[in-house]
């Protein structure tokens, strides 16, 4: 399946030859114009959020829909970061996303390796079981999962967020298809040298699967950071809330102050923009190659 091919370096094509046909040239100009207009539209919400966040509150009240400000300031950011709980939520989001991503890479790569490279009894059954996981939307499990974590007394701990997000069928298949794309001789020679299967996995295959691992890592991280419904149910104590939940649940006792609301929206999105800017290529390739959503 094309949608589950091994992440690989993009094939860079030579740019198309400059079209000589005047119709083509005119068309390209038209395309650029339309594209620029659409891009400008797409930028509006983000720019508007930033713009609102640097305006003084009194100005927003008197003329809400104006872009121009006479007194731009970062006060709203200062207030959100000093008075609010944002720093703790940042930490929670970061730790949960990091732990989930690390565990997902380790656990799913092992499983992917076993499924792809080890010929063991019961492999078909396991593969079927993992496939079944692709069909279960996690939203349908909120009721029993909540009861389960309540019974384990793990609500309001990071584990409630991490544990259900680690065993991901898609990640197993991403790793499996990557591992089965590697040459068979790799394992063969190591096995002849007497290495155990775990050593073959950890010393030879794992170091080679960086593209798959980084795709799984980044996607799990972003997904975990942005997850909303499940953390909304399980994280009721402000100390352990993640950014998306905290921003929704905890209100400002002084009422809505839009500069601060927009500042916290900007701050909440900022780390992921950074991740995206740094790993833009990997993310885009990850989507193109795996269709992980």
């Amino acid at each position: 399946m094309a949608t589950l091919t091994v992440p690989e370096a993009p094939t860079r094509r030579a740019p198309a030859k400059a079209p000589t046909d005047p119709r083509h040239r005119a068309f390209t100009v038209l395309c650029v114009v339309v594209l620029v207009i659409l891009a400008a539209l797409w930028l509006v919400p983000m720019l508007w959020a930033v713009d609102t966040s640097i305006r003084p509150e009194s100005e927003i009240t008197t003329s809400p829909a104006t872009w121009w400000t006479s007194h731009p300031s970062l006060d709203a950011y200062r207030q959100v970061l000093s008075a609010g709980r944002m720093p703790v939520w940042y930490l929670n989001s970061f730790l949960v996303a990091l732990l989930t991503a690390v565990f997902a890479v380790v656990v799913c790569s092992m499983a992917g390796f076993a499924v792809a490279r080890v010929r063991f009894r019961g492999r078909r059954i396991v593969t079927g079981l993992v496939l079944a996981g692709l069909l279960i939307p996690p939203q349908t499990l909120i009721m029993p999962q909540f009861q389960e974590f309540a019974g384990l007394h793990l609500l309001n701990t990071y584990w409630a967020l991490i544990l259900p997000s680690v065993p991901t069928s898609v990640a197993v298949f991403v790793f499996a298809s990557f591992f089965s794309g590697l040459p068979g001789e790799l394992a063969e020679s190591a096995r002849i040298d007497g290495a155990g299967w775990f050593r073959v996995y950890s010393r030879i295959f794992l170091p080679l699967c960086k593209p798959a691992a980084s795709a799984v890592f980044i996607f799990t991280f972003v997904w975990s950071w942005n997850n909303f419904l499940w953390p909304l149910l399980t994280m009721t104590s402000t100390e352990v809330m993640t950014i998306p939940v905290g921003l929704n649940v905890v209100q400002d006792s002084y009422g809505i102050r839009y500069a601060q609301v927009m500042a916290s929206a900007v701050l909440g999105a900022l780390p992921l923009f950074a991740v995206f800017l740094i790993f833009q290529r990997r993310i885009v390739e990850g989507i193109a190659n795996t269709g992980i959503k």
Partner: protein
Amino acid sequence: MTVSYPQGTSRRAALGALGLAGVGALTAGCGSPIAAGIAGTGPNATSLTYWNLFTGGDGINMVAMTDRFRAAHPSVHVDAVTLAWGTPYYTKLALAVIGDRPPDVAITHLSRLPTLAEGNLVEPLRADDLAAHGLTGDRFTAAAWRKGQVGGQQYAVPLDTHPFVMFYRTDVCKKAGLLDATGKLKPIEGTDGLVAALSACAKVTGGYGGVVNVNADPATCWRWFDTLYGQLGGQVLADNGTRIVLDDAKAEKALSFARELTVQRKLMPSNIDGSGVTQLFASGKVGLLFDGEWQIPTYQGAKTPFSVAPVPNLFGGTYHCFADSHALILPRNGRRDARRRDESLTLVRGLLDNSLVWAKGGHIPAFREVQDSAAFRKMQPQAQYVPAAKAAIYDPAGWYSGAGSDFENIMGFAVSAVEAGQLHPAAAIAQLRQKLADYASKPAPVGGTGS
């Protein structure tokens, strides 16, 4: 640094160790939030978590009251959390109790208390514990204290009573000839009286005469309907919510009047949300406003010339207007020991002692010492509607009823659709009847065999 509790410690410790290994140096020195996240340890022993649902004027007053308490009790650290009002608040409260990490003290509406108590989500308060903090029935508004009991057991300590009232702009009403010599609103009687008053205001403003919130706020729609329908002597639920006793004729009369004001006579806007309401009244584009008294600080802040009166008696029957109370509860928590309970009640008492600050928000303090004080009697316009508190009749009992409940949503959405001209009264009644029947016919998920 943190106090861990014996129950389930070993599993948590094991998971904690695993997590710490995973995060490595990151966690070093970061302290209690991470410990809470990884090991599920409780909060600091000397820290009380206090949940409330107040924003705006009430929010500011509550912050002031909490700050005063902190100043008087420097040894107790109060972590006050403001959550979004309405259904999400009570859902969160239930989830927090089930999730083993409830706040130590929380605000509730008394109309919500029966469901919370029957759901075993709130701790019963022992009379001697209460008495030790001077919290006895004789020191509170009787109706509110009684409503703090479920099955004869005290569960809540009332903070206030807050009725639905009528705001009037003194400048607009003066020009409309609605004020008497002392500058007070002349009594308005009957639906004709209100229509006449609104028309007079509309002439002054050149637009609308009055306003009540229509959009995206089912609670306000329900309060407006409850006030009208209650004055006709109507009731909605009986037998703990298992029976619908809606009087279609009376409901239709109430809804038709609400619709007449918005759709037919256009004396009030039929499409307006909360911020629109504030803008209209603050900018003098209407003369009358029907809303909760808790909006008083909004208009004081906006320097609006206004006063407040009880909603007029429109249908000539026994007087009624919507009212509810805020109260303080101790959500159920197996980890709460005697000392923590004592500190929690200290906070409850401390907030009551400062409820004159709370009265600034328009609420009538339930604590009699404050309610009867000279300082409160002088407070205007609050002193104008104290009788409404004593006559308070709360939302009908039922597991799906109370502030921010499905009941208020069902009622409010239907009323809103009528006021907006989207539904005819008869259709709205059919809709809400059918939706209420869904709930009334079900076995209550609370009460009965407790856990």
